[in-house]
């Protein structure tokens, strides 16, 4: 049996109420969506700042090395073969380096890892520089080259501490 409404009193109120509820629901959904969009944009901006912060630290390190190369070049101007001895003394003990000798030419490799911790996340900048044997006419940029300038983030580690059933009865 089909029941029919005999009176139409209040139907317009019902329609308006439903319309308002629908509008409020869509407005709230829209706010939630744009709020997460803004959150993502802010995160991207923060990541970008961190990237350039690390890059700037790397630039400072590179500048320090180039300053020392320049000093060593001045000290060894008359005897380029003594460049690496002077440079090695100027670098001190804190900088990791290796010297490779091949016949008459020598090559120094300098490595540096810069770590930046922000919001409990660690970011790394790995720098590898090579310094070639100079001659009497060499300038800083002629002998110093950047082999690696790699920025990376701490990798995600799989949580394998959960006690899972291995299928053995």
């Amino acid at each position, binding site marked *: 049996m089909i029941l029919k409404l005999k009176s139409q009193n209040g139907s317009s109120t019902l329609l308006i109420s439903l319309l308002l509820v629908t509008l*409020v629901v869509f*407005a709230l959904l829209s*706010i939630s969506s744009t709020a997460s969009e803004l959150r993502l944009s802010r995160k991207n901006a923060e990541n970008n700042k961190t990237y350039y912060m690390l890059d700037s630290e790397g*630039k400072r390190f590179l500048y320090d090395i180039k300053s020392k190369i320049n000093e060593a070049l001045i000290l060894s101007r008359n005897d380029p073969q003594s460049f690496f001895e002077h440079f090695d003394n100027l670098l001190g003990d804190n900088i990791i380096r290796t010297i490779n000798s091949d016949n008459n030419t020598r090559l120094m490799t300098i490595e540096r890892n810069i770590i930046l911790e922000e919001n409990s996340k660690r970011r790394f900048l790995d720098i590898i520089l090579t310094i070639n044997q100079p001659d009497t006419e060499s*300038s800083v940029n002629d002998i110093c080259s950047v082999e690696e300038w790699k920025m990376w983030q701490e990798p995600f580690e799989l949580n394998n501490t959960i006690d899972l059933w291995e299928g053995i009865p």
Partner: protein
Amino acid sequence: MKSNKKGFTLIEMVIAIGILAVLAVGIMRLFLTSQVSHQKAVDLDYAVLETNALIERFQDIKGSPGNGSSFTIYYNDKWERTNIIESNIQYAIYGDLAKLSDDKAGLLHLDLRVVRLKPYILEKNGENEIYKISVIIEDLSYWGEDK
């Protein structure tokens, strides 16, 4: 002859329209808040893109990028570069380039500040700072000759 059909009185109509108007204003504000959030997200994304492009450009300058210089770049509402004469300027990037310190003359300090010059809807602030970044730039021409 008396009619059986009853209409609304004026007071009932005024009250009904009043209630609907208040609710409509509330719902409009929700949509406008959402619109402002969206605009802020878009502005921040563009600000990051534009500042990155500027930083990379400064880092690639083969000669000296200059010391102690300031500059301003203007954009319209679609984030297209425009000049100061145009009337639809909506965003600006203020930049300052200076020597980092006297003992580090080959390094330059670049400060960039992105500002929205017109207020967002529902907000009163005339100038909104969208994004700010400071970076160190190497003067590639510095070690080119003997120092």
